[in-house]
């Protein structure tokens, strides 16, 4: 798949502008980039494609001088390139437009641009230059407007123009369309095409297949920190791209022969707005989960996972009839009313959501177990019952701690996660919802948690696992579905799913929506990247 020097189909013969060789960057517990190599030329829009956590952001942050690689080297225009800071990168002609903007709302466009410059020219001159650049590249923008009055797309233009004024050779764009309307996407693509025609290199990060097929000349595909392929995306189908992105080593499950039980919990046509600032709106979610099965919900982080968990746990209330436990409408019930009925949940964020960091495991056991474990009588907490519960979780789930009196934040991620999951499982739930149960855990801890979820289901509980780890979902789930931009695809039996179908469900082009995906802007916010 790798191109020979100057031998690809598009017939470009110039030497690579940017060469990356054997780049490695490891964080404690995770290797974000492992022996990553690629090269990119002038006049090219070069996609870095991959799922969340694949290492795209780490890679471009290294190129932009924000991170220093553990191993490997880079060359820019044939010369050794090792930026110690973004300042060095800019000096060398590398600019980056971030996913989240750093602009002052109370200042106007020109002032914001001046703030980002090493030596800003006089304001009048700068305003003229901004007008010139915005006209040249088809980015309508008035330098005197206050940034506070601009749309997300216009703010992105400020960032782009700020970069273009430095006349960069390489422009890095991190998930640029995630905040744009379709019209703004069209304008952005026109601009990027003009830049390409001028001979600039654009490194374009995305996980949206259709977008990349429409815009990019070449794609380097990453998975779990490694390059798994590179190709001309225009020559490949969305399906083939998805397969490379998802990974061909994905083990597809054999047919499962167990009989599905009755429906334990169902959601019908639920639409819910998010309370959070960068939250995702849930749109027309429908699902049901049966006793004895694990429903796996895949998808890239920020597509409504947190919101879906909140709707199921009772932290977000919804119309009563929208969530049914058997026949009982529970949409308006709070977390403790649902716990009393056997609906338990384990959120993704272990510290600060599932547990209070500075409280002991005994107190954290009472946090979710107070109702079902009979820890409260007449308003008074029976702490010895809470301690017993905490200690049995520690023993049964092999949580390695000095004792139940340890505070939650003193535990390692894996141990705390075992505690969080065990705390709910020992309450014998009828329905258990977990979000990212094995995120950031080592293989042994992850396997233990998966096994405990499988055991729970085999005892007749209904389990919903929300996860970004496809291998995990393929391993344990009975049926599979994917969240994308707040929509949930129709659940399918995991047994018999093809890679193509999984890729399409995940990539934002699920079922019959392939054609639409290119024009519809995503709202995916990359939250799960392994950044320290």
């Amino acid at each position, binding site marked *: 798949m790798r191109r020979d020097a100057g031998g690809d189909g598009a017939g470009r013969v110039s030497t690579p502008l940017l060469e990356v060789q054997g780049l490695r960057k490891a964080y404690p517990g995770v290797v974000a980039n492992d022996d990553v190599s690629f090269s990119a030329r002038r006049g090219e829009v070069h996609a870095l494609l991959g799922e969340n956590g694949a290492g795209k952001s780490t890679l471009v942050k290294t190129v932009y001088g924000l991170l220093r690689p553990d191993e490997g080297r880079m060359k820019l225009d044939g010369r050794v390139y090792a930026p110690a800071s973004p300042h060095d990168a800019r000096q060398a002609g590398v600019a980056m437009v971030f996913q989240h903007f750093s602009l002052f709302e109370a200042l106007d466009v020109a002032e914001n641009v001046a703030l980002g410059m090493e030596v800003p020219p006089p304001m009048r001159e700068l305003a003229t230059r901004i007008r010139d650049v915005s006209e040249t590249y088809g980015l309508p923008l008035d330098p005197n407007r206050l940034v506070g009055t601009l749309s997300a797309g216009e703010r992105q233009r400020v960032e782009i123009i700020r970069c273009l004024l430095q006349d960069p050779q390489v422009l890095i764009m991190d998930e640029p369309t995630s905040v744009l309307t379709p019209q703004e996407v069209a304008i952005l693509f026109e601009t990027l095409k003009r830049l390409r025609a001028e001979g600039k290199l654009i490194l374009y990060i995305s996980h949206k297949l259709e977008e990349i097929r429409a815009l990019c000349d070449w794609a380097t595909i990453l998975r779990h920190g490694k390059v798994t392929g590179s190709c001309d995306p225009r020559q490949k189908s969305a399906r083939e791209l998805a397969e490379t992105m998802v990974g061909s080593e994905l083990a597809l499950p054999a047919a499962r022969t167990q009989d599905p039980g009755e429906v334990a919990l169902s959601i019908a046509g639920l639409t819910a707005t998010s309370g959070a600032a960068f939250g995702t709106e849930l749109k027309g979610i429908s699902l049901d989960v049966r006793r004895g099965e694990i429903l796996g919900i895949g998808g890239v982080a920020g597509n409504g996972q947190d919101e879906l968990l909140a709707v199921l746990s009772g932290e977000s209330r919804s119309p009563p009839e929208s969530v049914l436990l058997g026949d009982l409408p529970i949409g308006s019930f709070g977390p403790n009313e649902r716990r009393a009925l056997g609906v338990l949940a384990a959120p993704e964020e272990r510290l600060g959501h599932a547990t209070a960091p500075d409280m002991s495991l005994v107190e954290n056991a009472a*946090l979710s177990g107070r109702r079902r474990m009979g820890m409260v009588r007449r308003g008074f907490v029976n702490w010895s019952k809470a301690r017993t519960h905490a200690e049995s979780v520690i023993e049964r789930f092999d949580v390695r701690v000095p004792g139940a009196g340890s505070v939650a934040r003193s535990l390692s991620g894996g141990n705390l996660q075992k505690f969080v999951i065990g705390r709910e499982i020992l309450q014998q739930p009828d329905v258990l919802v977990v979000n990212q149960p094995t995120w950031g855990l080592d293989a042994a801890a992850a396997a233990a948690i998966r096994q405990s979820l499988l055991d729970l289901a085999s005892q007749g509980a209904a389990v919903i696992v929300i996860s970004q780890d496809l291998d995990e979902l393929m391993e344990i789930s009975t049926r599979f579905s994917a969240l994308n931009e707040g929509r949930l695809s129709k659940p399918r039996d995991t047994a018999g799913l093809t890679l193509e179908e999984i890729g399409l469900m995940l990539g934002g082009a699920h079922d019959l929506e392939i054609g639409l995906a290119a024009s519809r802007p995503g709202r995916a916010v990359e939250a799960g990247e392994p950044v320290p």
Partner: protein
Amino acid sequence: MIRLERRPAPSRAWAWATPLLAVLATMVAGGLLFAFLGKDPLLVIRTIFWDPILGEFAFYYRGQLLVKAGPLVLIAIGLSLGFRAGVWNIGAEGQYIMGAICGAAVGLAFYPLEARWLIFPMMVLAGGLGGFLWAMIPGILRTRFNTNEILVSLLLVYVAEQILAWMALGPLRSPDGAGFPGSRNLRHYDAAANHELIAGSGMHWGVVAAFIAVILGHVLLSRHILGFNIRLAGASPRAARFAGVNPGLLVLTCLGMSGALAGFAGLFEVAGPAGQINIDFNVGYGFTAIIVAFLGRLHPVGILLAGFLMALTYIGGEAAQATLGVPAAAIQAFQGMLLFFLLALDVMTNYRVRFDVRARA
């Protein structure tokens, strides 16, 4: 290079040592301050900390100790519940004033009826209710309109002071007062008076209430689910929501409890040591109680000790002003240092100091 390293778990030893070290550091820094003012630092510090308890005139000061510590502890217990939950009631002074006005108004309304069994309990209830309702203003504004309870409760102190002045000059002014501002003196009205329970001890119903509040506060925080919810909400708001805590209700509960306790303190003060509603009724107990709450580590028993310590600096400070001519501002600075050093040393509970001999390669 010196750097701070976060401890894996908060240090219990430091949590208890910091108040003592803060007192010591305050004595040292305060001693320097007094020395700069040309006073003998040892003499001033002895006058503040030693004489009121064991000095020649201690028989007089000891009673004052309870009189001053009572309202401080009572208010601080209420505040600490909110502070534990991350609800910042800074306006206890206003709730204290409104409690005093409401309680005194009920007592004065019955004047000169002699039915203590009825009148005094009703005054206590009215006092608590006055403080409670005044605290509900920032509470409801926060839960309904997301205003900042720090600002609203603080600004309402100044409103309460205006109401106090109006009451002293208008509706509650004594008909027998020859036109001077101020209500009738409740100490001269037996059915409504909050007399000393043991002569010369300073012990009155407000001090009893403070002790009860310490015990109930301790039980609430350590054993009751509401206390757990309060601690949980303060430690981690998201985890509290996950645990099923209703954040709005918790805000109202915390503000209501602290307001009611401040109201009680106001009533016991106006019916006892102060005696009457007057323009200068409030002397800052509601603000000092904030220091007391933190000095006592937001722990009921700690607050009890801190209340006595603060009362001591007040009484000793007054003695130092009277006998040694130390300026009042210097005494206030001295009290302020106590909170400053406490907060500064507090860092040690969660962090430890590391000395790097050489920068790491």
